[in-house]
């Protein structure tokens, strides 16, 4: 067992965990943050996307011990702070979700795009950035609509 100290959604956490525990399982099973979903468990589908020291990572490819002394943000944190409220409303309004399982990871990746994209980013650029997040239902067209709507709204506000 190993002791780690980290900040999760702004809250300091100290935990004693097995070194082989994945970050996604730590968030879900130890902290009860079940908005982070697991879909493939080897870094392909993007459902477990979280922010680690400001950069998005796959929660299934990071060990919890690697997050020691780091800052972790999940969909719950971004929801509570209101950072992605406009994006979440755009997802709802544009019907950019069906089963909703990929949605938290999709929102995390979309927000990463919006934070770094040029103001005149194209739909093709949105598609490219989101292509590491699978939506099997599949709402790709509406997801691009929602991200584009948010991009335009943030630019003019």
């Amino acid at each position, binding site marked *: 067992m190993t002791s780690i100290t980290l900040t999760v959604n702004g809250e300091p956490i100290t935990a004693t965990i*097995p070194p*082989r*525990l994945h970050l996604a*399982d730590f968030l*879900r*099973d130890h902290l*009860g943050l*079940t*908005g*982070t*979903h*697991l*879909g*493939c*468990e*080897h870094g*392909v*589908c993007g*459902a477990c996307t979280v922010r680690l020291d400001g950069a998005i990572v796959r929660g299934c490819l990071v060990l919890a011990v690697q997050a020691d002394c780091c800052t972790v943000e*999940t*969909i*719950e944190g971004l*929801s509570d702070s209101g950072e992605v409220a406009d994006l*979440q409303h755009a*997802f*709802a*309004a544009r*019907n950019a*979700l*069906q*089963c*909703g*399982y*990929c*949605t*938290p990871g999709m*929102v995390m990746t979309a927000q990463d795009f919006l934070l770094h994209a040029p103001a005149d980013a194209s739909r093709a650029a949105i*598609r*490219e950035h*989101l*292509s*590491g*997040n*699978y*939506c*099997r*239902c*599949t*709402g*790709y*067209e*509406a*997801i*691009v609509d929602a991200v584009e709507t948010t991009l335009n709204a943030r630019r003019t506000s």
Partner: protein
Amino acid sequence: MDINMGNGGIGVPVVRRDAMAKVLGVAQYAADFPHENTAYAALTLSKVARGRISRLDTAAAEAVAGVRMVLTHRSLNESLGDETFVMKGGHMQSSFLPLTSDEIHYAGQIVSLTIADTLEAAEEAARLVAIDYAREAASASMDDAGLTEEPADSGIDVGDAEAAFAAAEVKVDATYVTPAQHHNPIELYAASAAWQDGKLLINLPSQWVMGTRAGLAKVFGIPIEDVHVESPYVGGAFGAKASILPHVVLVAMAARRLGRPVKLVVPREAGFTVGSFRPAARSRVRLAATRQGKLTAVMHDEVGQSAVIDHVAFAGMEATSKMYASPNIRMRAATVATDVNSPGFMRAPAEAPSFFGFESAMDELAVALGIDPVELRIMNEPARDPVSGLPWSSRLLVECYRRGAALFGWSDRNPKPGSMVAADGTLIGYGCATATYPSAMAPSSARVRLSADGSCVVYCAAHDVGTGAYTVLGQVAADVLGVPDELVTVEMGHSRHPSGPVSGGSITTGSAGSAVHMAARAVRERLFATVAAGQDRSKMTLADRHVVLPDGSRRAISDIIGGLPGGVIEEHADWKPTDMDDKTMQQGLAGGMAFAGPVGGTHVSFSFGAQFAEVRIDPLLRTIRVARMVGVFACGRIINPRTARSNLMGGMIWGASSALLEESQIDRARGRFANTDLASYHFAANADVGEVVVEMLDEHDSVVNAIGTKAVGEVGIVGMPAAIANAVYHATGVRVRKTPILMEDLL
């Protein structure tokens, strides 16, 4: 039919009721439910495809710290209730339950379930379960030598198709191949079981909570009331989560023995064999026509991959036989048994593979005739079902083609293959194909409660697998009761609710929706009876939370209901499809699979669509991109255009994915699926998809059911693979008669 269009419930693009829960990450899926003191399970799978377990040693696994149990065929050693395969009238995904014998029937079969205090310990121990096998030769592919075809049904015969084909002026005779595919919903299969006082509570992603309850009650020999199945949110299903998968029984068994909740999330790789899949198929299609383009013979012989352990036949000729007017029709289905896990329902199970071949053949016939493919279909439009002779409940296929062709710009198409080239040399191809899906119905119950504050709750053990059922069923109640949608709550996905049907076969809206409609009407009747006994109820209406009396005066619902004992009006309804007898209805309501249609006593009900694709192909590399898809559909009344559009669009993207990417490859030497993860089983990512345009025609069907809806969930996929293959031919002159269509097929 009685639809109140005045209050905006039906036909309004209401935003999904579950949208905010899902974008915030608070919607609870099966693996998210906490049970106190849960133990974690991990699977060990068979490495061979056929044979017996010759040696089993669990000592090393049991020695891992924290391991509580290693369940194998030796330690299970308990007789279970006689429950069977879903297609034999039971509820199980397979008639064979792993761990009930030492036999191995397919690669990836569960050979042990290890339970530990932590997931990590369970996974470590599962890898230490030592097994030797007495291995036998296996065939996982229907193309293996020595396998025989068995007829799957007596076929369909109208006229003398063989003679008409032999005598025809123009004909097509070609064979089309589609591979095995896996559903791969992003949510993994999971089960979390807890026993309390002999009662089982199980959380799992389910398209059929009532069937799962009935099946588990039988397996464990306990009353049906003692099983509670909970599945409020399902992370994609596509047919994969309807019947009871084997791990569900094993997890419940382990939890009972340990006296402790047990949770298993089935890893992606294991899901390929713990669950079901779409079997491979081979369609030979023969079409004959006059030189003017009138069909004289339609023949379709399909051979599908089945399993040795369960006979499964999905041939889609019930649908292909009804597509076009022909005096002579001959359809035959056969299967080849292989050593695989039992195939199962996957989005348009019968129709998607069959229509790839059938609608490709129609395109080949159009080429042979020199007739435009859209016009060929329109000139062979049947006035009635060519097999039964019955009228359609509604069929606007020609209108779908006319509108779709206009939306797509079909008139710009130069029919000569390879003739349309972009400025940079990219080859452009236009293709079209017909989509259809049967509008079957199942019995359903529902309960509707209206409270004095005007709020309304709908209860039904149906499911929202991402389709929008939470939203749509609420709209039906809101429409009848004249309450705003935001005052409606819908409770589904739990076996304690009034019986709902399996959410498969695109039946939820028509079936559960009809039951909700019936219950809501009963609430309205009671409201009317309470407010004005003896008055003419047919002249009373409900609007804006008021009853409007025949004389135009208004009484607030709050006053009427507030005066009643309990302060609510609540009604239960059991809805039965037309043409279904009472006994079948009761079996359905008790958790059995009971369908009526699409061929009824007086009419035939299908949804229809015309689908168009534009492909762009690199002239040298032969990479294929679907630049545009257009789909125009006639699916009866659309309760919610927003959610219906997204189902149809999702189906079309599935179709494109199927056409160009998806194949469960079979390692024939080892008799197993080879690409069992999301890195090597390819399906469409965002960048694979171009523009998608969906339109729904305003279609009124007054006979299909009480609310006039037809199938929406699956029809979107059906024509798309053929439309894309036909577009590839148009772009290149190369006819590819198999999916996925790959760049090497065009070299």
